[in-house]
């Protein structure tokens, strides 16, 4: 069972309440595909990913970024049992999508960096710590059903 302090809980809820999904989602996913190009292996049918400019203007990437971010909504609403909440999603990523779980961390790092750019000084060390704790649990839960 994960223990959340009041600060951590309210920080995570506040971040997601204030976040512009249409901005952050595409920015995080496209950044991941640019900075860690091997992650493009999962998006073979997304069209033109030949260079950074193409990736950043790719509409399928943008849409998928939004989808992934909204996927985290359920974790935010069920912070006390993310593991169970994500059991099905974990099976999906393992059995159907065949995503190497190490990639979850790469996207998580890019999301952290995009959030830092959007929030500026409001992204304090304490806020970063809370957000990274949340991400670590999401990532662990998503990797749980792999075998």
């Amino acid at each position, binding site marked *: 069972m994960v223990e959340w302090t009041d600060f951590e809980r309210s920080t995570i809820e506040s971040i997601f309440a204030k976040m512009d999904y249409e901005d952050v989602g595409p920015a995080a996913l496209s950044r991941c595909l640019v900075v860690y190009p091997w992650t493009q292996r999962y998006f073979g049918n997304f069209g033109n990913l030949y260079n*950074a400019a193409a990736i950043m203007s790719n509409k399928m990437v943008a849409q998928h970024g939004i989808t992934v971010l909204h996927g985290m909504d359920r974790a935010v609403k069920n912070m006390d049992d993310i593991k169970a909440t994500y059991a099905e999603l974990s099976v999906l990523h393992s059995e159907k999508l065949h995503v190497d779980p190490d990639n979850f961390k790469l996207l998580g790092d890019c999301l*952290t960096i995009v959030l830092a750019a959007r*929030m500026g000084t409001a*992204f304090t060390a*304490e806020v970063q*710590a809370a957000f990274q704790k949340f991400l670590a649990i999401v990532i662990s839960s998503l990797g749980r059903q792999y075998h």
Partner: protein
Amino acid sequence: MTLSAKDKAAVKGFMSKMKSRSEEIGAETLSRMLVVYPQTKSYFAHWPDLAPGSAPVREHGVIFINGVYEAADKIDDLKNGLLTLSELHAFMLRVDPVNFKIFIHCMLVVLAMLFPEDFTPQVHLAVDKFLAQVALALAEKYR
């Protein structure tokens, strides 16, 4: 993952922007690392004050950042250029190299915060590649 000419140019270009806020970047990166990754405090137990923004933290932040600039100057041969620094880390400081990645992550977060427009994905890629090479060069003399 060798640095291309384009990577080197991007790194040097961005470093020149960083120079105007060196102290801030250094202090913020180090403070942040100590809070977000508390296990890193184990290397600084001898400091009187580990609080974010304290004098030892700020001073040392500058030392870290100057190290990064020094590495950028030696970007064409990091392994040889950083030999002395590697010996320092390997034989004296004995910092576990896993912490290099932690420090790098914190620095990238701070760069995104302070330079939201300039820290584009392409610059992020080049800087991340560069810092990874610096970490490798620092770990050179470990064993």
